[in-house]
């Protein structure tokens, strides 16, 4: 039986890597996750037959926990709205981190003799897993709107660092003292790690949460890999470390898309929406346009590029926008979607939302792919996006978003901006695009306005 189990774990590890590899293209991605799922199923099933597991009670508990945990996750995962996906990912990730910490907890509570290296790694995995657990829960709460306030106080960084240092110290004592540590010490260690995760995440602004979630995802992977080492389970080691490094890379890519370093995200408190700097030199006036005129303009264009933002998703306008796109397509207009890497609440989130509306992925283009095309577009339709099309990022070094790569919507012949009111975007920076000569403002709720555009195009 032991051999069969080892083979099963090996197969699972292969399937995980194969599955993740398949996920690098939208054509094969779904098959990828299904294969990874098969790997997981095999690994979990053989684990019931692992030698050394004992007690009917333990088996019963195992079964109950899987049914409850899996059942609740299944229902919530099936029901969650696509706009709320980022916080669900944070929540599931936090659970993984907590599980890794619990594994270390069981091993350490038992006071089992371990070699020095193994014991230190168990403690390290516990620390990382616990931080990922409590941090992810805060990230979930923030994105879900449960915790709206960003809590900050003077010398916060130093207090956080102090808590972390003490947690590490306790961890070192536990890791180095063989079986000689007390239960109380363990308890305080986990408590410190829990509070550090909370304290580290609480001051970070909502706009930065995607990067933070990705970071915690990588950390959970790492913790899982470490606990795999403690248990001598190579499947856990490989899967955990693969996710750890993949998540680290993803985190870097996301931070880069916002033109910021990871340290900047974690420690600088940008995107809080507080006292934002006003770009003083924006001149010109906002020029409104009627939906009927905008519709005509698009219907007789050769090429239209649509720039959607989270505002579109919140207004649930993506279905109407896709209907409009189809109508324009029937009239021979070339329509493309331009997606900024950080549009939505998570990199790639906008792609998911458009996919939900039925927009085929080969009509959707990244910033690098499409930015040169704006100059040849007759109309750029900006709906619910703001900061990602603000030319100030290119021109004004004083602006907080200076240097962030933006979509060159301002280079199009005409720009139509669908927007509810005259307020500023997430970063609180005035958008110079709205004041340009070739820009027209189309005020109203995204879904309603899109409906009017559809009517106009249909009536032509």
């Amino acid at each position, binding site marked *: 039986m032991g051999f069969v189990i080892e083979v099963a774990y090996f197969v699972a590890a292969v399937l995980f890597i194969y599955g993740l590899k398949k996920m690098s293209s939208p054509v094969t*991605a779904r098959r990828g996750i299904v294969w990874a799922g098969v790997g*997981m199923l095999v690994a979990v099933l053989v684990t019931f037959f692992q030698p050394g597991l004992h007690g009917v009670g*333990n088996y019963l508990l195992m079964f109950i926990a899987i049914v409850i945990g*899996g059942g609740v996750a299944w229902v919530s995962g*099936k029901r969650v709205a696509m706009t709320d*996906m980022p916080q669900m990912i944070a929540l599931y990730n936090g659970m*993984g981190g907590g599980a890794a910490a619990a594994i270390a907890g069981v091993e350490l509570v038992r006071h089992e003799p371990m070699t020095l290296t193994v014991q230190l790694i168990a403690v390290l995995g516990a620390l990382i897993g616990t931080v990922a657990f409590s941090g992810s829960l805060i990230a979930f709460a923030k994105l879900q709107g449960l915790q709206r306030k960003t809590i900050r106080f003077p010398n916060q960084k130093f207090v956080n660092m102090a808590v972390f240092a003490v947690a590490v110290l306790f961890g070192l004592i536990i890791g180095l003292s063989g079986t000689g540590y007390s239960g109380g010490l363990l308890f305080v260690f986990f408590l410190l790690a829990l509070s550090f995760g909370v304290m580290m995440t609480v001051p970070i602004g909502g706009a930065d949460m995607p990067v933070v979630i990705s970071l915690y995802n990588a950390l959970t992977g790492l913790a899982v890999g470490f*606990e795999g080492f403690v248990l001598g389970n190579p499947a856990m080691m490989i899967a955990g470390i*693969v996710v750890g490094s993949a998540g680290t890379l993803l985190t870097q890519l996301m931070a880069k898309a916002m033109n910021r370093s990871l340290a900047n995200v974690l420690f600088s408190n940008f995107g809080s929406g507080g006292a934002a700097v006003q770009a003083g030199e924006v001149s010109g006036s906002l020029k409104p346009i009627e939906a009927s005129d905008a519709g005509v303009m698009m219907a007789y264009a050769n090429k239209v590029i649509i720039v959607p933002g989270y505002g579109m998703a919140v207004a649930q306008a993506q279905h109407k926008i896709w209907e409009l796109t189809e109508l324009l397509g029937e009239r021979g207009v070339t329509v493309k979607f331009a997606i900024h890497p950080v549009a939505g609440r998570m990199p790639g989130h906008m792609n998911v939302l458009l*996919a939900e509306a039925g927009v085929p992925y080969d009509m959707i283009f990244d910033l690098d792919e499409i930015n040169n095309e704006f100059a040849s577009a007759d109309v750029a339709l900006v709906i619910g996006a703001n900061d990602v099309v603000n030319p100030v990022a290119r021109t004004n070094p004083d602006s907080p978003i200076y240097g962030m790569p933006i979509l060159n919507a301002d280079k199009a012949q005409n720009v139509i901006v669908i927007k509810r009111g005259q307020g500023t975007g997430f970063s609180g920076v005035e958008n110079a695009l709205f004041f340009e000569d070739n820009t027209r403002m189309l005020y109203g709720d995204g879904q309603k306005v899109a409906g009017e555009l559809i009517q106009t195009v249909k009536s032509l």
Partner: protein
Amino acid sequence: MMIEGFVALYIFMLAAFTGYEVISKVPVILHTPLMSGSNFVHGIVLVGAMVALGHAQTPLEQLIGFVGVLLAAGNAVGGYVVTERMLEMFKSSGKGGQ
């Protein structure tokens, strides 16, 4: 199976490179599903949590182990469901939009 010293180090190193290489060519369009997918993959922690609970001897160990398995099962199942739902929606215009 016990994995010690340099063998463990080799596994770590190779797995780290594998993760990096597998992800480095992924287009931005798939970043959210991929993050969710990698989130699912570390749901393998369920296996470890089951082992930990299976070895539990005292009620406290059983309690911690139970919580571990509960959380891990949520991680694995939730990660899978959510990722699959997202990927299901990606279609190419070649096959028709809807």
